[in-house]
């Protein structure tokens, strides 16, 4: 990254790319993102015409459908200082398909706003799953961990084999359900081994997968998006 946005724009005008999944199934992650960014002095807007970035279609080989969805983005999200998404995989897709200044939340906070301590307090034992796209597509590095370490009362426990995929992979989870479930079983075993109350990540899609497995197996672990912890 060149100059952090904070040094050139005050206040920072942020467009929230909430993502179709968060919008529909995990609004609490979107709400937490808005509140957190506002608390840190950003002006947050939600372009209401937004729907989906087209990632699922692109990854499923429906390139034209994916491109059609991606083509809507520059007009909807143009003109802001930054576009922020509570999702690494959607941010990575938008980065690939447009020239928009798009960031995943933790990447934006640490890299652009230069904040690690967001003033949160969360007195629980937490483990962090680095999602594949945050790690290998967007390269957010240890930004989420730095943010979590600064949260008051939070007991961060390292997840064994953390960089292994949870087996979600979009349509992979249904097209290759058996393989996906075998990958999930190993991830769940590792999550349980931490003794954490909460498993967090930068992507609600992977959390939906891990959380769905935890609920099915009756494990006493909740899933929460990073934004929810940072906003608490």
């Amino acid at each position, binding site marked *: 990254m060149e100059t952090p946005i904070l040094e050139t724009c005050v206040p920072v005008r942020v467009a929230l790319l909430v993502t179709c999944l968060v919008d529909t199934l995990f*609004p609490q992650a979107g709400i937490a993102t808005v509140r957190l960014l506002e608390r840190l002095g950003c002006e947050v807007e939600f372009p209401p015409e937004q729907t989906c970035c087209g990632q699922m279609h692109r990854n499923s080989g429906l390139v034209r*459908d994916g491109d059609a969805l991606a083509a*809507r983005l520059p007009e909807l999200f143009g003109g802001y200082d930054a576009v922020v998404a509570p999702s690494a995989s959607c941010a990575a897709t938008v980065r690939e398909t447009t020239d928009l200044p798009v960031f995943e939340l933790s990447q934006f906070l640490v890299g652009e706003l230069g904040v690690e301590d967001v003033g949160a307090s969360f007195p629980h034992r937490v483990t962090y799953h680095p999602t594949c796209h945050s790690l290998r597509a967007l390269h957010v590095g240890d930004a989420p961990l730095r943010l979590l370490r600064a949260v008051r009362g939070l007991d961060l426990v390292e997840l064994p084999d953390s960089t292994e995929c949870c087996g979600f992979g979009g349509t992979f989870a249904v097209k290759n359900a*058996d393989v996906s479930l075998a990958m999930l079983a190993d991830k769940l075993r590792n999550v349980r081994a931490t003794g954490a109350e909460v498993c967090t990540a930068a992507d609600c899609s992977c959390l939906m997968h891990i959380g769905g*497995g935890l609920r099915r197996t009756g494990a006493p672990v909740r899933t929460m998006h990073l934004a929810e912890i940072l906003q608490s």
Partner: protein
Amino acid sequence: MRIGEPQLRDNLYAATRTIRAKRAQVVAEVEDWEELREAGRAIKADAMRRLDALLEQLEEAVTAAGGRVHWARDAAEANAVVADIVAGHDAGEVVKVKSLTTDEIELNAALAQRGIAALETDLAELILQLSDDWPSHILVPAIHRNRREIRDLFARELGIEGLGDDPEELTDAARRHLRQAFLRARVGISGANFAIAETGTVGVVESEGNGRMCTTLPPVLVTVMGIEKVLPAWRDLEVFLQLLPRSSTGERMNPYTSLWTGVSDGDGPGEFHLVLLDNGRTRVLADEVGRDALHCIRCSACLNVCPVYARVGGHAYRSVYPGPIGAVLTPQLRGVPGDSDDLPWASSLCGACYEVCPVKIDIPALLVHLRSRAESSDPALRVMGWAMGGPRRFAAAQKAGRAALRAGVPVPPWTKGRDLPPAPPETFRQWWRRTRG
């Protein structure tokens, strides 16, 4: 894809973890590893762009050094060339270096039809040959076999009594079995890791020394090489001889690197044949995205980090090229619609393969490209794509989706092993409108 048996999965988990850790360690100690990867990628991309000219240059150089070059369009042509050479020397037996390319064209079966016995001399390949099995990993082809199975196999097939299952003892048994064949054979057969257009030099890297025996002891050497293995210049080896062993076996340098240029009087084979194999490669080259799969140097690092490979095993890929690279190479090499359409779907697109690839093949991008090429038209996804085309349609779809969720409608492949999340009281956009509207 079908998931492997628990024993297979345990074997693969343990074996791939060991190689992974070794690789990570020796890669970390190379300061300019990323620059080396980029150099490897660039050299391969350049070679692919002028493959026709490089191959002719290679032919000229090999010929000038006393070798003979044969061009084979497909497996049948290549097999016929090799069988004719062997038959021309009245040899009923050949010794072979481990070679994926000769496995790809099923050379051993073709030779058998002409009454020629091909003896695999790599330990793992020998195990597979004795048990009529086929490779499940690029580097460690018998990774799916454990030592007790191998002890029983050797005892039975090599007629050794009282054999233990200690790896050293097993290796020793194989060595004694092979040594006579090395001394007897009149024709050696190899693949090639590289061939240098500039000098006509062909190279094989290996660990066991059997390759060195096959390429130096018999008076005749035949090398079958995919045309994509050509490198422009001698100095390119500097890059690839660093990238390959560290990525493959996790060693700084492999134990044996054999390089030969045509023939030399009184040193090594007096007759050398190089068979240049196409077998679908020019078709792959014609696809500007898909052609990157031809950059592969067969290190197998992508297999060792792939969460899918570790659970399905190599045989699930139905090809001598298993794992992530196989999933992008096999459908393209075969070029038969419908034959291997499922392979590009055998990935969660986690990107671990791309991260370790020594020549930076963006395997996830290739997988997605092949998914699009297969023109799969998933009706549910098409409808979703339409619904997401505008905010009104999208809001209606959200409403329907949440209603289905509240009603507990099962979504079979998903709900097989995971619960669906509870439906939230309102969507994000409803919250926004309610609180900010």
